[in-house]
């Protein structure tokens, strides 16, 4: 059984059905990306995994079924979600944001170690530790969101459009940090991105979504060399 296995996933916003029977899986240690145009259902997929939308079907994480579980309990199983728009707690400090990330971690030493690890990945966050989080730049807030996710020592990290609204150089830096986190911390990743080139560069596997269904899947090499994908999503 795969680390994360999704079968026949349907998701609903009120009466509108956003996902129509999604099937995909993720192996432990890997980075998988979900690509697709606006409205394809990428964000909905991540939200379904975290129990944030009404859903049907089967989602299994490391043998545990996630359907019907509350978000806060799914998180405690070791899944960290870096939400669309970063979800920063804007009125408290950078360090308080990170401390909140460690809400489920016991032990002051563990929390301090986790915080040191995050500051190692981003010295700039350490500089701004006592600054109000809402005054950080976009790139810094994105790094803070990733850091906050890292604080709960996740086995799986869900990332929703981390490159959104960031300058290319910052994005490059961020994605390098993501690669390190995947390598050194052994955190598997499920990445939703509109920037297909970036995503395919980082990920091993990719799924292509269109209006709530998987239309293509394969390794990153296969997907990026596919003619149709190149024309529609990669622009060449």
């Amino acid at each position, binding site marked *: 059984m795969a680390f994360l296995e999704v079968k026949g996933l349907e998701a609903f916003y009120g009466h509108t059905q956003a996902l129509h029977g999604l099937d995909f899986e993720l192996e432990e240690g890997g980075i998988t990306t979900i690509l697709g145009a606006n409205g394809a259902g990428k964000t909905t997929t991540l939200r379904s995994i*975290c129990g*944030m939308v009404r859903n049907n079907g089967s989602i299994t994480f490391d043998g545990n079924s996630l359907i019907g579980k*509350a*978000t*806060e309990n799914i*998180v*405690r199983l070791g899944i*960290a*979600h870096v*939400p669309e728009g970063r*979800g*920063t*707690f*804007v*009125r*408290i400090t950078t360090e*308080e944001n990170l*401390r*909140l*990330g460690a*809400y*489920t971690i016991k032990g002051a030493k563990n929390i301090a170690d986790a915080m040191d690890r995050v500051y190692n990945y981003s010295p700039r966050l350490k500089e701004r530790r006592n600054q109000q989080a809402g005054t950080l730049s976009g790139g810094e807030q994105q790094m803070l969101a990733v850091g*906050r996710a890292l*604080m*709960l020592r996740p086995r799986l990290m869900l990332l929703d459009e981390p490159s959104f609204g960031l300058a290319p150089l910052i994005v490059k830096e961020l994605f390098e940090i993501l690669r390190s986190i995947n390598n050194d911390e052994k955190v598997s990743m499920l990445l939703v991105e509109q920037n297909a080139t970036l995503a395919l560069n980082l990920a091993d596997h990719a799924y292509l979504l269109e209006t709530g269904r998987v239309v293509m899947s394969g390794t990153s090499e296969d997907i990026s060399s596919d003619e149709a994908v190149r024309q529609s999503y990669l622009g060449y």
Partner: protein
Amino acid sequence: MEYFLQQTLSGLANGAIYACVALAVVMIYQAIDHFNFAQGEMAMFSTFIAWQMMQWGMPFWLVFPVCVVISFAGGVVIERVIFGPIHNAPVLSHVIVFIALFSIFNSLAGFIWEFTIKPFPSPFPEKDVLGTNLIAMHELGMIGITLVMLVMIYLFFRFTPIGLAMRAAAANPVSARLVGISVKWMLSLGWGLAAAIGAVAGMLIAPMVYLEPNMMLGILLYGFAGAVVGGLTSPGGAVAGGFLVGVAENLAGAYVIGSELKLTFALVLIVGVLLLRPAGLFGRVVVNRV
């Protein structure tokens, strides 16, 4: 001059109670975006419970903390049983439930303990402070206990992990759940705290206004005025607003409008602030980009 000082100090004492009510109202408002119209009746009911315990022979120093704990538990239960299920319901549903709760507590208190007024003992001696007649011991006690309680609450929210989690749950519930915080339980905790604060306010004011089911009506209004004046997004502002309203109401009543219009004064204050500066003195103006 002496008269002015007396009015100001007793205004501060009343203001302490309004500050407590204002704080309780703002705490719940920050959590669920709705005004708890039943806050005063909950406090009144708590005070009756305290009175009953004293009738059974328990000493005041024991009754006070026991009543606070019972009220805390009551607040949690009310949130879990009544307001949790209607969390996503429209405003009107909430307003109706609040009014229903108001009526239920009021009638229940009247049914159990009757509507005749009862004296409520003060834990403080009857004498004047330092031999002057500027302020009574009980009034000083009101200010003192309120300040101690407010400091404890501030420290709780500022420096404990649960306090941080409660602030996070109110500020951004989605992100809070994503770090594993049970927003549902943080809400219940908030209600418990608000109920406990209300109980303290009730027990402190009862010696002065006498215990009866309608005793908190006017005080709730002043508390609302304090919350509005201070700003609904700022607990600190609500406290400041409560003290301000207390002093202003007393001075206005003493020098300008006479004591019959003091309650009207509170209403005028609420309407005036909402018209001229809706965010209150210390509140944040929320700007939404469209």
